[in-house]
């Protein structure tokens, strides 16, 4: 069924048991993003230290795609230096815009390749990107604050 290409088991697992979904008190930036077309919201805290993502935590409401995607993203970027985290972000954004033509590099994207099917459902791409865009924004705001 076409639906199975969208909702892979790993997505449903992350949806049921999201990672780092518990806002950490200390952060260098906190952002709040909404998806105005559906009302989904996310608050994301990030701790940037010595050019690395030293901490990331989030809370929010959203569909299985947005929740799973955010959960997977936090696992991927935690502990990485900003440049490599942004490379992953770029790779993921490309995958989402691929209209089903790419399957994603598992070496780079790990669990996030499970979201490849989302690119065939244009209305859901924004769901998958919600957490990632919040992450990008939070990093940029941290950099501004830290004067990096």
């Amino acid at each position, binding site marked *: *069924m076409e639906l199975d290409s969208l909702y892979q088991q790993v997505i449903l697992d992350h949806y049921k048991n999201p990672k780092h979904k518990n806002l950490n008190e200390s952060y260098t930036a906190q952002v709040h993003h909404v998806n105005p*077309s559906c*009302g989904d919201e996310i608050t994301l805290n990030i701790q940037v230290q010595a050019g690395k993502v030293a901490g990331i935590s989030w809370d929010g409401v*959203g*569909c*299985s*795609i947005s929740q799973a995607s955010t959960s997977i993203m936090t696992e991927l970027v935690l502990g990485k230096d900003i440049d490599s985290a942004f490379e992953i972000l770029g790779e993921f954004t490309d995958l989402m815009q691929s209209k089903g033509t790419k399957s994603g590099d598992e070496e780079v994207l790990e669990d996030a390749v499970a979201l490849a099917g989302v690119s065939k459902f244009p209305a*859901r791409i924004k769901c998958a990107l919600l957490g990632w865009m919040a992450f990008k924004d939070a990093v940029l705001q941290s950099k501004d604050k830290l004067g990096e």
Partner: protein
Amino acid sequence: MSKKFDPVEVRKDFPIFSKVMRGNSGLVYLDSGATSQKPREVLDAEREFYEKNNAAVHRGSHLLAEEASAAYEGARQKVASFIGANVDDVIFTKSATESLNAIAYSLGNSKSGSRYEIKSGDRIVLSEMEHHANLIPWQQLAKRTGAELAWFDVDSNGRLDLSNASELINSRTKIVALTHQSNVLGTINPVSEIAAIAHKVGALFVLDGCQSVPHFPVNVQSLGIDFLAFSGHKAVGPTGVGVLWAKAEHLAGMEPFLFGGSMIESVTMTNATWAPAPRKFEAGVPNMAQAVGLGAAVDYLQKLGMANVAAHDEELTGYALEKFSALSGVRIIGPKDLKDRGAVISFVVDGIHPHDVGQVLDQYGVAVRTGHHCAWPLMKKFGITGTTRASFYLYNDFQDIDILIDSIDRAQKYFKV
């Protein structure tokens, strides 16, 4: 009145129902609250206008200009009789959203001392169940003028709390703007009752008829309202055309909102005077083919009979409410009884986000709306981020509802809730 129609026969008039949807399913279209599908008559009317009569209306001395003007004004006449209005009180806009903005901007343009002037200290009364299109234009008018906003609360059954109506609509109230039927809850509001309270304090009553005019007989005279806004595209008509109706005295007394060609009486380099309504409120070359298409839509609805459309809606809604009540883990947001209730059912499925419900339904060809339905404050009131909404119309039947119910069950199995 014509005999009740058969939705399966009606569907044959709508070419889109031959579409093959995801999962190789036929189309089960349950999103008419967002926009309705269009019958062949409407599509033909638009095409025929472009092929045979196209010219700018009310200008030009040629045959096409005459024919285009006659077709456009003929559509106005059809719409006027459809809502029990005088033909000169019907304004064509591009959408219901524009109609509502036009009222707000026109009132905001009033000259000092005019009865239509909105000032600091005046009050504008709305309700918590308004669509953003009947909320934000008033919010903005309030910000521009210093007027205050007040609103009717919605109770847990999705009905307006009218207990404080006479305190809410006080002597400072200039405008009461309300939806006839909630696009989320399906609730039909007691319009005449509230309009009477508004009139007692000299306030104007604005009705958002987007969800009512396409679905049941609406007569502007018997409702006792001052303004009505609705869109063509929810009433089997084309996109790009909406209607603003107002009492003749208001159209005469109010300032226009858009300025330009067509709407003038005379113009100098420093001044201009206005043509009488409806031209006063129709600046520029209008959406002619779309207005003509709306005329055909109104003909189509009248051929079926609006009382029949309403009865059909009610039958479907009654059937759906019964089916929904048997589902576990599914909660209806809105009235659970048929009284004063339209053909819209919003629901939440425990443990599944509306987007995911909608996605599974799509796999079975079922088209529904998901999200906040342009009624964000109402979602907050119910403590939810969104709902899944099924809305019914003249081409739907019991089988559509059976497929919807089965698909909800499949969604629950898929997400193991």
